[in-house]
């Protein structure tokens, strides 16, 4: 079956990537480090729980989530305060016991709740967005053994879009790194 894969033209590659299975998190971490050293860039790992140091070794850019949450908080806090100001000073001024119309300390609780609400909504929606979810169909789901990624197996994918992608040598190096299973992941 490997004859079909000798093509060096990555765009025409019939596979989406090579999936390798490891039984230990430490083996996966070592494997990622070694493959990065050899110049592979299109790597992705799949683990049943967040493994310490994995995203650093894969050299992912930092998560933009803190900025998204900050933006949500600022937008939420400012808009709720502005809403209160507009309502109580402009459209519906009420004289409550002669208190000033702009009684700002009384506006703080709702402002705080608005900050938290918008920051949380931005957090969840931003998280779903930056993860590229919802995506119910993905090439990796074609591999039956991949189901173990949510229980006790650690997987590594080298995508065929990687400029260093060359299946035969890759299979050798993955075996050398201790992979206990390997699959070709087809395009879907």
């Amino acid at each position, binding site marked *: 079956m490997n004859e079909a894969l000798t093509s060096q033209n990555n765009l025409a590659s019939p596979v989406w990537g090579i999936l390798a299975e490891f039984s230990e998190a430490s083996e996966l971490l070592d494997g990622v480090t070694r493959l990065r050293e050899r110049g592979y860039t299109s790597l*992705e*790992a*799949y*683990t*049943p*729980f*967040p*493994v310490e140091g*994995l*995203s650093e070794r*894969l050299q*992912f850019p930092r*998560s933009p*989530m*803190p900025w998204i*949450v900050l933006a949500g*908080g600022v937008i939420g806090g400012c808009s*709720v305060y502005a*809403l*209160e100001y507009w*309502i*109580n000073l402009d*459209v*519906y001024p*009420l004289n*409550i016991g002669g*208190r000033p119309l702009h*009684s700002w300390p*009384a506006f703080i*609780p*709702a402002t*705080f*709740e*608005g900050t*938290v*609400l918008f*920051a*949380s*909504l931005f*957090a*969840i929606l*931003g*998280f*779903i967005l*930056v*993860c590229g*979810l*919802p*995506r*119910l*169909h*993905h090439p*990796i*789901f074609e591999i039956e053994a991949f*189901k*173990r*990624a*949510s*229980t*006790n197996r650690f997987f590594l994918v080298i995508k065929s879009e990687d400029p260093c992608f060359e299946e035969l040598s890759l299979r050798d190096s993955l075996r050398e790194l201790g992979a206990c299973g390997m699959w070709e992941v087809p395009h879907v």
Partner: protein
Amino acid sequence: MTTNAPNTQLVPADATHESVTAQVADIVFKRPVEKGWIVGFLVGLFLLNVLLTALGWLFFYGVGVWGINIPVGWGFAIVNFVWWIGIGHAGTLISAILLLLHQEWRTSINRFAEAMTLFAVACAGIFPLVHLGRPQFFYWLFPYPATTNMWPQFRSPLMWDVFAVSTYATVSLLFWYLGLIPDLATMRDRAKSRLVARTYGLFALGWRNSARHWMHYKTTYVMLAALATPLVVSVHTTVSWDFSVGIVSAWHSTVFPPYFVGGAIFCGFAMVLVLAIPLRRIYGLKDLITDKHLDNMAKVMLAAGMTVSYGYLMDASMAWYKNEPYDSYIYTNRFGGPYSAIYWGLIVCNCIVPQLLWFPCFRRQTLCLFGIALVINVGMWLERFVIISLSLHRDYLPSDWAMYYPTVWDWLLYLGTFGIFLTFMLLFLRVLPAISMMEVRELVHESQEQKREAANSR
């Protein structure tokens, strides 16, 4: 010591990623369903019908079916609202504050404690709505452009409460769902039938356990915890402002916010124990929800109970120290008035009985702990009754004084909310993983690493 080597006690020594995952997932996948679950569900459905009856009659007849009067306009509805929402706070405390404090023992209790929060807030939310008298106009509370040109009044604590409780319900749901996503993917991958797998898969949004997803997940989860922490404190503070901003003599006190929050934690942890003890017995989860977990929760409960007791003491001593007749009469009335039995009942339940938790033997006897937790739940309900209804029944004008007697509809509505709580809690146990599998796997991994390091250094 407890922070350095807690793992050995929190997961069994021979646990593997597979064994802990299977143990939790099997609660859902196992057939047939336990008899205890079916009995509980039938009871829940019965209580749910009690709730529907109580609500139906209330909507038909109006709030006159309750025992409220003038001056006691705030009766069971508000007492139950504060009680339920306080229970919810323990879930957020366990999932958010203990996460930020790196308390690993939160791991196997956070999921169902968060579910408890959601259902308790749902129960709580019913009461202020039906207490409105015209519940069909509840949406007038929200600032929206109306043809009446009327807008809410943001200087009122009741308005703050609307924002606080609705935000709390939303954020608790989001936080809970975020934590569920990886576990829903696990359920998807373990499901035997295609339909079940697709249903879980739909809610898992196509989660792939990829390193990139985990990176975003962890950042988002910690940030949501950091947002939920001040939120949970703000919610019960706002609830206490409903009272302390008012001019009712017994309410107008700055001690309210801290001791309301303390009371919420106290009562909430008691409720977590009331749920956790039968849960681990029925489903045989003693190696995931260990004695160590129960012990820690009992200690938190003891600390919160002491905070609450301190609050009672300060409240009483301030009333005496102010030397102001209306304020000191509150305590004359509490100690010896017509409701004094309720006041002393709360002192026994909230201040005296929890002192047993100083002794390890009471913390380790689960049946005993269960009993103490129940007593605390009752005590905290009595506390809210004393603070709310008792403070109103003898106000500034003796000509206004009246007694408050709850009617059967007050009781049935209160009882009925247990129907929501029980039914939804049991449905949750049936369809969702009650323990965070992904976090327990992480804990197993850490304990294996520690063992390996210990073996290497030897």
